[in-house]
């Protein structure tokens, strides 16, 4: 076995490298967050090349988008990034409302910001928790999961489902926020900082974790931009792009928070970016819950997209007509014959929907721009030259969700 350094190894060399061996990693493996497959070429423990093989969860989401209407498809968007389903709902209906040119009510915007930030906390808890679990920190994982259960409890009080909520509708939301939800969110905001402090004390200066993640999987800023990375993966490499600040949507202009970035670009940097983002999201949640504007949650009757209040349906003619138009399956609301792209800052990165409307209530083409797909393409580049055990750390830091990867 030659002792040449890995970086100078030329794979296109015609001398047969029979000391290299091929290892199949996945698709059934505890550390491949569900179904990913990597075919690794290894020199002992060093990774020479990693060829990803995906598609083990490809369910035809985009094809379904051409058969379900805008309010039905939100149930499918839940199942994309299933650890923060509310952000997918917000992104999908944000895109539909951008296509229709609808302006939401202030209360609806604040509630959508609230649920998007709670989902962000939930996503980062699972991502960091799983990263900790894969590197051996089981207690950290349990702390993170307990807090996720508290968030699930809030979501369940809000709309009945722990996750895969399908909470948003075109022009509004499924239900309004009740006082119990506000009380539970306040209790969460009071108790969460202590857990977050505990989690930081467990891993931030833990020698084992730091040794396993510092300097591993370095992504430079130029590579991050060239490979279309976004979200914590790009921000951990120094790209200061956050759609909540750069292209504010919903009510993010009203909130005071900071964008978390790092220059190092390794796994430890991404881990720290996510931990810090949880603090910032907690700030936003506190501000949202204290300043929730009063008023209706759905858009008014004139836009003819959201169901009117039952009292209006029974007592006014506009309410009755509007309800009838929306309820009957051969009617519905008018959608322009146009195409639009709308992106939100999902916990994983830039989650956008490219919708082609064709006049009916069903999209002609519903394309989801998946951050996990883009980030997994960077993975072979990050892992070259590292060891087999670093694969798990790098995968954990990229937060690859197989359902978003494969759609």
């Amino acid at each position, binding site marked *: 076995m030659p002792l040449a350094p890995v970086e100078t190894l030329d794979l296109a060399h015609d001398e047969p490298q029979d000391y290299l061996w091929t290892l199949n990693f996945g*698709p*059934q*493996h*505890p550390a491949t967050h*569900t*179904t990913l497959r990597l075919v690794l070429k290894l020199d002992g423990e060093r990774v020479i090349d990693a060829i990803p093989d995906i*598609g*083990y*969860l*490809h*369910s*035809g989401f985009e*094809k*379904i988008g051409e058969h379900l209407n805008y309010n039905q498809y939100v*149930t*499918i968007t*839940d*199942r994309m990034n*299933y*650890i923060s389903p509310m952000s997918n709902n917000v992104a999908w209906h944000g895109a539909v409302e951008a296509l229709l040119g609808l302006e939401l009510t202030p209360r609806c915007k604040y509630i959508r910001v609230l649920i998007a930030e709670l989902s962000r906390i939930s996503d980062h808890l*699972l991502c960091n928790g799983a990263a900790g679990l894969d590197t051996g920190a089981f207690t950290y*994982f*349990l702390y993170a*999961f*307990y807090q*996720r*259960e508290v968030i*699930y409890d809030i979501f369940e009080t809000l709309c009945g489902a*722990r*996750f*895969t909520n399908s909470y948003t509708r075109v022009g509004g939301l499924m239900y309004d926020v009740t006082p119990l939800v506000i009380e539970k969110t306040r209790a969460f905001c009071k108790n969460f900082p202590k857990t977050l402090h505990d989690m930081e004390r467990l891993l931030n200066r833990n020698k084992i974790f730091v040794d396993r993640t510092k300097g591993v999987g370095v992504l430079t800023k130029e590579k991050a931009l060239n490979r279309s990375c976004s979200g914590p993966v790009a921000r951990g490499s120094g790209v200061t792009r956050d759609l909540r600040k750069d292209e504010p949507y919903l009510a993010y202009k009203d909130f005071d928070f900071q964008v978390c970035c790092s220059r190092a670009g390794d796994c430890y940097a991404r881990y720290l970016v996510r931990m810090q983002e949880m603090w910032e999201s907690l700030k936003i949640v506190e501000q949202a819950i204290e300043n929730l504007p009063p008023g209706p949650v759905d858009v008014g009757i004139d836009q003819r997209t959201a169901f009117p209040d039952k009292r209006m349906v029974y007592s006014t003619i506009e309410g009755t007509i509007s309800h009838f138009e929306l309820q009957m399956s051969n009617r519905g609301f008018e959608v322009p014959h146009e195409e639009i792209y709308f992106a939100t800052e999902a916990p994983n990165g830039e989650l956008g929907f490219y919708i082609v409307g064709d006049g009916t209530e069903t999209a002609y083409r519903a394309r989801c721009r998946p951050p996990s797909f883009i980030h997994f393409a960077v993975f072979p580049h990050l892992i070259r030259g590292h060891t087999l055990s670093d694969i798990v750390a790098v995968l954990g830091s990229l937060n690859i969700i*197989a*359902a978003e990867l*494969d759609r």
Partner: protein
Amino acid sequence: MAVELPDNVQIGQLDALASWCRKNSLWPMPFATACCGIELMATGASKHDIARFGAEVFRFSPRQCDLMIVAGRVVMKMLPVLQRIWQQMNEPKWCISMGACASTGGVFDTYSVVQGVDRFIPVDMYVPGCPPRPEQLIQSIIDLQDKIQREGTLGGDEFRMTARQQPKRALVELPGLPTIDSARNPVAWSSEVGRG
């Protein structure tokens, strides 16, 4: 004269003893593909603790497990992997199909999602839900434990004599309600290779 047995002597069937041991230490093989995988992880976490039922050891090697929990949708690219892992598990082995997607294809009636894992591997317990709550999954494990206790044999004969298997508790007909009787209401299956 009757023999007085001391307190530390039990008499029973060997089958019942073997089933009791097996049911209380089911080691799950989590075949987690999608959203149900997250609920599976939540069931294993501290709030709904699956370790209470002896099923704490989530070994990811099929050679060391006896309960395969198919959590999430299985697409046609993944199905050969699922079948291979099922074949690699040693008997006695059971399968829980968790969630709507694993049981019937769920919301995904598309070109790539297998419409029910039971078309291609034998399933013992179905858990409905999208995703099922952790309490539902724990209930299914309890039901599976009852099934193992009822039907288990030392030599694994229940896997070969399907006539011994009783109808699942959920499918026992309730009096007075209309039932789906396939003899009276035959379903026309389109010609598919996989309908076994």
